[in-house]
């Protein structure tokens, strides 16, 4: 078993961070208390116009939910990362973000002046802060992941948020297939109407992976992923289009 943790840290609930993940490393996120939400976006650090594309990710794997075996695609037909472990079973990528307005209307305004670092941040502004560190702005935003959260759609197309999707200790592990700039926050899912602003901390661990074998589950999950891996391998050896 590969359990060589290179780094481990905890991000408090309602906070944000970003980092560069190298190809061949993995990022495991652990929901410490249950009910966490991690808003996440990916960019190619060498060409930030290449970014996570939720519609491409869903349609090429014929899925609305994300879980073990799925790959998270860029808009350039490449795979930023693969879901190599997951015991949550359903992660959302269409709910988008809380905004300042949503947070204030639902949980009241908790500004920094009055509440210091117990203030209530929102997902949209959290992304803006992290994006700006890399010269990006609202124009570079895309539909994000909401890891640990579940949104279901009925036959009429109506959407609803499912409470209690993720339990204390549940986790998801992403293996990076190319160098990826990871932007994330731990603000609540925008469809979560919990009475109190949910401040749910997330532990994250970085590991070196064993790489991708020929019989890799994510790679062979569907024909589309085999082609996505081919595109990504081509990019990594320097022949990427």
């Amino acid at each position: 078993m590969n359990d060589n943790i290179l780094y481990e840290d905890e991000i408090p609930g309602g906070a944000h961070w970003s980092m560069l993940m190298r190809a061949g490393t993995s990022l495991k996120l652990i929901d410490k208390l249950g009910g966490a939400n991690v808003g996440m976006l990916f960019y190619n650090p060498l060409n930030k116009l290449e970014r996570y594309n939720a519609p491409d990710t869903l349609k090429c794997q014929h899925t609305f939910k994300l879980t073990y075996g799925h790959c998270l695609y860029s808009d350039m037909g490449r795979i930023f990362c693969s879901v190599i472990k997951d015991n949550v079973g359903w992660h959302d990528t269409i709910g988008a973000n809380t905004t300042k307005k949503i947070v204030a209307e639902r949980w009241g305004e908790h500004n920094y002046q009055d509440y210091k670092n117990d203030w209530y941040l929102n997902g949209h502004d959290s992304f803006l802060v992290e994006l700006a560190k890399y010269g990006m702005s609202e124009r570079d935003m895309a539909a994000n992941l909401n890891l640990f959260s579940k949104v279901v759609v009925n036959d009429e197309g109506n959407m609803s948020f499912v409470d209690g999707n993720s339990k204390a200790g549940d986790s998801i592990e992403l293996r990076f297939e190319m160098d990826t700039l990871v932007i994330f926050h731990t603000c609540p899912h925008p469809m979560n109407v919990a009475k109190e602003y949910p401040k749910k901390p997330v532990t994250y661990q970085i590991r070196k992976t064993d790489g991708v074998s020929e019989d890799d589950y994510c790679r062979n999950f569907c024909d589309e992923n085999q082609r996505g891996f081919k595109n990504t391998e081509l990019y990594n050896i320097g022949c990427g289009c």
Partner: protein
Amino acid sequence: MIKESSLLAEQASFREMIKAGDYFIKVLNKGQTLRILDIEGNQAADTLFYNAQNPAERYNAMDTIREQASIYLTAGSKLLSNENNTMLEITADTCGRHDTIGGACATESNTVRYSLEKKCMHACRDSWMLAVAENEEFGIDKRDITHNINFFMNVPVTEQGGLTFEDGISAPGKYVEMKAYMDTIVLLSNCPQLNNPCNGYNPTPIEILIWD
């Protein structure tokens, strides 16, 4: 929701046929109504909207569906921007529902979805790229290309979390109409996709009509 329009084509102030594989870009003024007409049926119209005064403000697919709590767009849907403003409202729809989570085709995603050998087949994103390159005055570039509406396209989602591209529910003569709440740049690709049922494997023209 099926809702017919009372607007008459002969009274439109603007009419243009858009062939499959071509783009359309134009400012729709506040108060004007835009109709997209599916002339031969089963034709996807991949559409993006921008605030004409500030293109950084643009249509936001995920905020739009979340706020109306339904993934399908139809008459009554308010199309929201990333600044939480209503850009347009769908005022008539004889098709019944339209997709906004399936995204557009691109040459690169075609390689994943169909075959690595299909990378040079024409795709919506190429039409948008040419549109913004040939019309620099709009101030749009690849950064601004986001998740679009696929008018006339049918992408059902199941309660178990499945998602498929189905045969269109559109038919010859079906249309969708929307009224602008702000001066809005309309950027549309009449989809050239040959590999899935979104155009019935045979892309056909659409017509754009505008009323003042």
